[in-house]
């Protein structure tokens, strides 16, 4: 250490402030080159990243602009709406249409007071008004009928203490509602076995229809509905709000631009693991034979004596339900039909069983459906369980790349791709990192309440984003329908798409129940 004993000091004690010497300047600023090196390294890194992104943009040239918000619903004379069925879905639809239950508003305000992160109320109040009037409601459970009337009068979206508008009329039967001259269009949210009969009667009367999915419960009524809707020229929208999901729009663009190459296999699924997700819903304390019009609930269903279980958990019985096929497969199918124009499958095979919820239900809680699309050289695999939450995305498998879609969208190149072979060899594409990824919306966490809600959100069934704002997809779907009524055109989930959805679901159910492979005769337009 001998040589090294030259001491380092700050400026000597007797130099004054004014006298900063050359030595001081050099020593004081000695670290500046390190800052220079840092800046150089930082710019270089940015440059490399930017080159990679640019490269990727050349490979996957998808729109980077957010999907535009559709124009506001026309001003002037409002469209006069009737709603049939005010259960779980009916309440959501009315809210999406701008008519929330006052109690719901109070709950959201309270939720925000307890947790500022929860902005459901603020988001909701930003939802655009659709220039509609609710003139009639019909629900055969008297408690819900009243609630529907109150929601229908909540023109200012207020809590229970707020000022309500004129109450819509409560109808005892859907036919009376459909006959009302002050109703132009109806929203149908009754159970599955009622969709087609109600929609057919509405169309016959020239009323426009927003009908919840699935489109029908039997095969014959599906044809009849298509015939009447086309004959009357009404505007028909099937309730697959996934049509409004931004990531699906992107996915479609990627398919159209052949980013994935030839696609031969699609895998979609349902995974839920709670009683609510398995349709074991609560039974309302005021429900009884005197508050429920049981005969009207049954409709075309086989006779059964009054049952609260069947009334609230009707999805568990084929007598009213379309099972996993109609309830959840249809959402996945319609998403892919939107993205890839699948049409009706050439054949369908299916199997499954009641493996977990042995509660007297007749519809399976585990189900596999395989649809073949020979024209497109494509298999579509649906796999569902209501007793495991292990989530699997929607995956579209192409020869050149694969795409996974949830509320996000991620595309990865295939290491053996032909289209990207050269770029992979040149190291310009790394098959392990996405060549495209898209996450809609704002940063931070969402105040999703329940596991089921999260399930819906991850499948794009709850919210999508427009111009960075979180928007309820159902709201957008209703808005599209209303815009089409004004413009006299058909919406995205029109009667043709509805027919494809209905037939695909019926083929799946038939394949399951008849335990055989079921075919579509495209010439005769029949299931064989």
């Amino acid at each position, binding site marked *: *250490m001998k040589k*090294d*004993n*030259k*001491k*380092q*000091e*700050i*400026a000597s*004690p007797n*130099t*004054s*402030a004014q006298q*900063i010497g050359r030595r*001081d300047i050099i*020593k*004081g*600023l*000695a*670290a*500046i080159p*390190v*800052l220079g090196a*840092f800046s150089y390294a*930082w710019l270089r890194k*940015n440059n490399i990243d930017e080159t990679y992104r640019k490269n990727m943009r050349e490979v996957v040239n998808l729109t980077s602009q957010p999907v535009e918000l559709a124009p506001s619903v026309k001003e002037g004379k409002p469209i006069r709406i009737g709603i049939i069925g005010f259960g779980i879905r009916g309440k959501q639809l009315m809210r999406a249409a701008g008519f929330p239950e006052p109690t719901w508003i109070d709950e959201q305000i309270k939720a925000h007071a307890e*947790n*500022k*992160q929860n902005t459901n109320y603020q988001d909701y109040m930003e939802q655009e008004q659709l220039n509609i009037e609710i003139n009639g409601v019909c629900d055969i459970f008297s408690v819900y009928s009243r609630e529907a009337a109150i929601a229908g009068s909540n023109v200012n979206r207020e809590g229970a203490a707020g000022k309500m508008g004129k109450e819509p009329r409560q109808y005892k039967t859907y036919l009376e509602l459909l006959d009302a001259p002050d109703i132009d269009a109806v929203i149908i949210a009754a159970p599955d076995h009622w969709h087609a009969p109600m929609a057919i009667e509405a169309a016959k009367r020239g009323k426009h229809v927003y009908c919840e999915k699935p489109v029908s419960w039997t095969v014959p009524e599906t044809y009849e509905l298509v015939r009447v809707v086309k004959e009357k020229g009404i505007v028909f929208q099937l309730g697959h709000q996934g049509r409004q999901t931004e990531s699906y729009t992107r996915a479609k663009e990627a398919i159209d631009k052949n980013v994935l190459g030839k696609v031969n296999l699609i895998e979609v699924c349902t995974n839920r693991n709670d009683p609510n997700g398995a349709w074991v819903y609560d039974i309302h304390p005021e429900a009884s034979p005197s508050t429920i019009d049981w005969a009207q609930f049954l409709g075309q269903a086989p006779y059964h004596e009054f049952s609260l279980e069947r009334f609230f958990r009707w999805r568990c019985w084929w007598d009213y339900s379309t099972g996993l096929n109609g309830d959840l497969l249809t959402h996945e199918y319609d998403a892919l039909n939107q993205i890839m124009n699948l049409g009706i499958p050439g054949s369908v095979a299916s199997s499954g069983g009641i493996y977990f919820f042995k509660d007297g239900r007749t519809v399976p809680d585990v189900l596999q459906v395989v649809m073949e699309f020979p024209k497109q050289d494509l298999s579509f695999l649906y796999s569902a369980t209501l007793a495991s939450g292990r989530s699997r995305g929607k995956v579209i498998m192409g020869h050149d790349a694969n795409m996974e879609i949830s509320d996000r969208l991620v595309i990865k190149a295939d290491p053996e791709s032909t289209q990207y072979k050269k770029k992979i060899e040149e190291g310009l594409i790394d098959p392990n990192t996405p060549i495209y990824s898209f996450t809609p919306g704002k*940063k*931070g*966490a969402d105040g999703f309440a329940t596991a089921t809600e999260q399930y819906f959100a991850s499948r794009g069934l709850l919210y999508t984003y427009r111009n960075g704002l979180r928007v309820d997809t159902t709201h957008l779907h209703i808005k599209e329908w209303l815009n089409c009524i004004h413009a006299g055109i058909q919406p995205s989930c029109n009667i043709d798409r509805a027919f494809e959805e209905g037939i695909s679901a019926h083929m799946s159910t038939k394949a399951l129940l008849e335990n055989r492979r079921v075919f579509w005769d495209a010439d005769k337009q029949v299931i064989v």
Partner: protein
Amino acid sequence: MSKKHIIASYSNTQTFLLVALRLLLGWYFLYEGIVKIANPDWSSYGYLMDSQGFFAGIFHAMAAKANVVAAADWLNKWGLTLIGLGLLLGFLTQYALFFGMLLLIMYYCSHPPLASVTYLIPQEGSYLWVNKTLIEIFAMALLMVFPTGQIVGIDRFITKWTKK
């Protein structure tokens, strides 16, 4: 001249190594800060939520409040950047070290490498009690008691100017 202005006399090698350590830490902080500033989507939310161990409750409660998260975002972005610059330039070095340690202690407390926990946010190695953060805390403590800003750094001018 008061005693606190007298700086230890180091050998060349000692100075070189102490300054080098300071620059490395400065680089590290500056990069962590700049990356966050450059990424408009960055938020401390996920990190706070990922917290485990004794203090997890506090960090989770912070994450639940949007304004606290916003403040934490801001403090991290600009705190890391300014601390990094301070260490690199030898500017207000003692303060930079002090606040840097404070940040690191928070990181350590929110993600203690305990035997019983695993984190969602990937760790680049496997640690037991002692991790990179803890070592950095001690490295910075060391630099605080062996200051170098007044030898190589802008603090050299400050000492002169403030000296009467």
